[in-house]
C-alpha cells in the first residue's frame, strides 16, 4: 500500500562529529563510499519506501548540504506540492548561529502544513538500505504512540549510541552512550509517530524554550507514552566517530556488503556529476578497491575507496585510504591509513601514515 507518512531527517547529531571532516560541513553532508554523502542512504531509503515529503533539519554549516541536495531532483523530490524542504530557521549562515526558542517553530510550521498521518524521524548517520513500509505498517497495527527501529548490533559496526531496554516490547529504559551494556537492543535512530503527536510534543517544547530536537527527544518520553520497538535486520553500518567512519568505509570492500547496500532492487540515489569514465593507464595496479568515475589511475591502489575525479600519479602507493573528490596524488606519493578530503594535493614523494584506529585526516583543499 502507498505509505501515509512524511519524513524528517536530522542533518546533525550533537554527539557525533567526524573531526575535521565536519569542520565546514554537516554530518549528513560527509562524503562516503566513493560517490555518496552520508545522507543519501536515509534519503534514498525514504524515497524508495514511498515517503516523498521530507524535511531536512540542519543546524549550521548547511552550505555543502544545500549544494548537494539542490532542488531535490536527484532523489526525484523536486515537486510542486511536497518534496524536499530544508527547514527554517535552521537555515542560516555558516558564520553565525544563535539558537533561540523559535528554532523549533520552523519544524512545527513544516509539520502543520503537511498532510500525512505519520512522521518518520530519522538520524542521518545510519548507512543502510531500509524499507520503512513494514515499520510504518506495524506501528499503525500496534496502536503504540511511538515505534523505534532497533537492531541487535551483533554484526553491525560501532558501539550503540542509544541502548534500549524493552519489557513486553515496551520501552522501559534508555541509556545514551552507556559504558556497560544492559540491553542488546540499540536504536537505529529512526522513530515513527503520528504527525499530531509530534506537533503536540513540539508545542510543549517550544513553550519551555527547548531548542534541541533529535530522536532521543522523542524516546525520552517513554514514561508518558507507549513506545514499542521494531527490529530491523538489514545490513547496517553506524557512523558515530571518525574511527567507525573509517572502518565502515573499508567494510564496503566486502562483497556481500557492497551487494546488499547498492545492488538491491532499491537503489541509493546521489547527486549526479557527469564525470567521464575512470581511466586505467600504463603502470597502474589496483586491488580490492572502489574507484569512481573521472579518476585517472597510473599508480598503485589497494584496499581503498577512491572518490570521483581523483588523479593517482605514477609509482604512488595508496593503501587502506579514503581519497575524496578531485584530490590529486602526485607521482611517487605514499599513503597508508589516511583520509584525504576534497580538492587536496599530495605532492611527489610525500609519505603519510596513520593507523586504522587513528587514520590521518588531511583537510579539504590543502596542498601537502
Amino acid at each position, binding site marked *: 500500500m502507498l505509505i501515509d507518512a512524511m519524513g524528517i531527517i536530522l542533518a546533525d547529531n550533537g554527539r557525533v562529529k567526524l573531526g575535521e571532516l565536519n569542520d565546514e560541513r554537516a554530518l549528513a553532508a560527509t562524503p562516503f563510499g566513493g*560517490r555518496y554523502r552520508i545522507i543519501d542512504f536515509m534519503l534514498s531509503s525514504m524515497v524508495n519506501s514511498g515517503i516523498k515529503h521530507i524535511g531536512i533539519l540542519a543546524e549550521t554549516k548547511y552550505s555543502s548540504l544545500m549544494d548537494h541536495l539542490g532542488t531535490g*531532483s536527484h532523489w526525484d523530490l523536486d515537486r510542486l506540492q511536497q518534496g524536499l524542504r530544508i527547514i527554517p530557521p535552521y537555515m542560516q549562515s555558516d558564520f553565525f548561529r544563535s539558537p533561540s526558542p523559535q528554532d523549533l517553530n520552523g519544524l512545527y510550521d513544516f509539520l502543520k502544513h503537511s498532510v500525512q498521518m505519520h512522521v518518520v524521524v530519522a538520524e542521518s548517520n545510519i548507512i543502510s538500505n531500509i524499507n520503512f513500509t513494514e515499520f510504518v505498517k506495524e506501528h499503525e497495527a500496534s496502536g503504540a504512540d511511538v515505534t523505534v527501529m532497533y537492531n541487535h548490533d551483533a554484526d553491525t559496526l560501532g558501539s550503540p549510541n542509544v541502548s534500549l531496554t524493552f519489557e513486553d516490547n515496551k520501552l522501559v529504559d534508555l541509556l545514551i552512550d552507556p559504558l556497560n551494556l544492559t540491553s542488546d537492543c540499540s536504536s537505529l535512530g529512526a522513530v515513527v509517530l503520528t504527525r499530531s503527536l509530534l506537533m503536540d510534543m513540539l508545542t510543549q517544547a517550544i513553550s519551555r524554550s527547548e531548542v534541541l530536537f533529535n530522536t532521543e527527544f522523542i524516546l525520552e518520553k517513554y514514561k508518558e507514552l507507549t513506545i514499542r520497538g521494531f527490529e530491523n535486520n538489514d545490513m547496517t553500518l553506524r557512523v558515530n566517530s571518525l574511527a567507525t567512519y573509517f572502518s565502515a568505509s573499508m567494510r564496503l570492500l566486502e562483497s556481500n556488503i557492497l551487494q546488499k547496500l*547498492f*545492488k538491491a532492487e532499491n537503489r541509493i540515489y546521489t547527486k549526479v556529476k*557527469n564525470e567521464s569514465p575512470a581511466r586505467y593507464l600504463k603502470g597502474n595496479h589496483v*586491488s580490492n578497491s572502489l574507484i569512481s568515475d573521472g579518476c585517472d589511475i597510473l599508480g598503485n591502489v589497494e584496499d581503498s575507496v577512491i572518490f570521483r575525479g581523483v588523479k593517482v600519479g605514477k609509482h604512488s602507493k595508496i593503501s587502506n585510504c579514503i581519497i575524496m573528490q578531485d584530490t590529486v596524488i602526485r607521482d611517487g606519493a605514499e599513503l597508508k591509513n589516511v583520509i584525504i578530503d576534497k580538492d587536496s594535493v599530495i605532492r611527489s614523494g610525500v609519505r603519510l601514515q596513520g593507523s586504522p584506529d587513528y587514520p590521518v585526516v588531511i583537510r579539504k583543499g590543502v596542498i601537502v
Partner: protein
Amino acid sequence: MPKQQMIAMILAGGQGSRLGVLTEYIAKPAVPFGSKYRIIDFALSNCTNSGIETVGVLTQYSPLELNSYIGNGYSWDLDRNLGGLSILPPYQSLEGSDWYKGTANSIYQNITFIDNHNPDYVLVLSGDHIYKQDYRQMLRAHIEAKAAATIAVREVPWEEASRFGIMNTDEEGNILEFEEKPANPKSNLASMGVYIFTWKTLRAHLIADENNPDSRNDFGQNIIPAMLADRETMLAFTFDGYWKDVGTIFSLWEANMDLLDRPQEINLQDAMWRIYSRSTLQPSHYIGENASIIDSILTDGVEVYGNVKHSIISSGAVVEEGAEIKDSILMPGAVVKKGCKIDKCIIGIDTIIGENVEVGVTVKDGRADFVNKKFCSDGITVFGSGLVIADNVKIMANSMFFPVDEGQTSDVILESTVLGII
C-alpha cells in the same frame, strides 16, 4: 512561451541496420557507447551545452529503449516546462496515417510542432554521430551570411571523399554544388549531417518537397539540391574537431577504441563541455584482489576480478577471475565468466559469456557457424543483448550472435531473454 531563436530536431528514427544484432531491438541512437554513454548523449549534450532548450527527437524504429533512456530529458537538463525535450513519433490524423517516409518528411510532419515554438532557425541533427560541437558558432556564421541553410562540413582525406556527400564551395564558403558520393570529387568537404536552416525558407521547401511525388523526401537527396537550384544562400561551415558516424560494426568499435587511443580528440574529461548521460544508480566500481586493468575505461557498478586490456567496460558489467578481455567492448550488465579469452568482441547488454569461452583471431579451431561477413570484419565478433553463451565454446572471429527464435535450440546460445530496458 518565450520566443526561441533556434530549436533542434534530432533524427533518431532510422533502423541502423548495418549494426546487425545491436539494433535488432533498440534504435541506433540508444546503443551504448564509451563505457557510460549512449550514442545520442553526444547530440543531446551538444544541444544543452550550446544553450538550445527546445529539442524534438524524431523517433520511429524500436523507440522503446530510446524513449525510456531519454525519459523526460532530465539527465541533459532538458526537462523544461517551456520547450524542453519532446519525443516526436509518427501519428494518425484525419488526413490519414503515415510513417515517416524520409528525413525531410519527418520534419514536414512536425511543421505544426515547430511553428508552435516560432523559431527563427531550426537545427537538424543526426542522433547517431560522435562529436562535440558548439552550434552557436555555426549559428553566428549562418546569421552573418544571411544564409537560408548552413551545412557543417569537415575535410576528409581526398581518397575517401567519394564515400561522402561532398560540398563544392566558393572561397567564402558558399555552396555551389552538392554531390552525393561523387566518383570524381571536386572538393574534400564532406557533410556531417548537421544543418541550420532559416525556418521560413525551410518550411516552404518542405511543403514543396512533400507535393513532389517523385521526391524521396530526404534532406541530402532532395531538399539541399532543391534549395541550391532555387539559388538560396547556402553556407558550408567547416568543423575541424573529432567526428564519427558509428553506422557500422567496425566504425562503432573503432570510435570506442578512439577513446582509449586518442583521448585528447574527443576529450570526455572536459569540464567545459560535459557529455551528459543518464545515471545508472550504481556504486563506484570494484576492482578485486587479483585483477589487472590496463589502457581501459570503466564506470560505475563494474566489477573486475580478471584481466582487462585496452577495452571499454560499461556500467554493471562483470569480468570474473582469470578471464582475459582485450580490445573489446562490454555493454552494460555484460558478464564474462571465469577463464574466458575475449579478443575484439562487442558483448551486448546483459549478455553472459560462459566459462572458458574463447573468441578471436587467435582461435584456430573455433566454431565457424556464426561467422557473419555481412556485418563483421577486421576480426570483430558481436554478441547480441540478453544472450547466455555456453561454457567452453571456441568461436572464430567475425561472428555475430543473434537471439535464438522461440522453439529453436542452439548448443552455443543457451538462452536469449527479452531485452530489459534501463
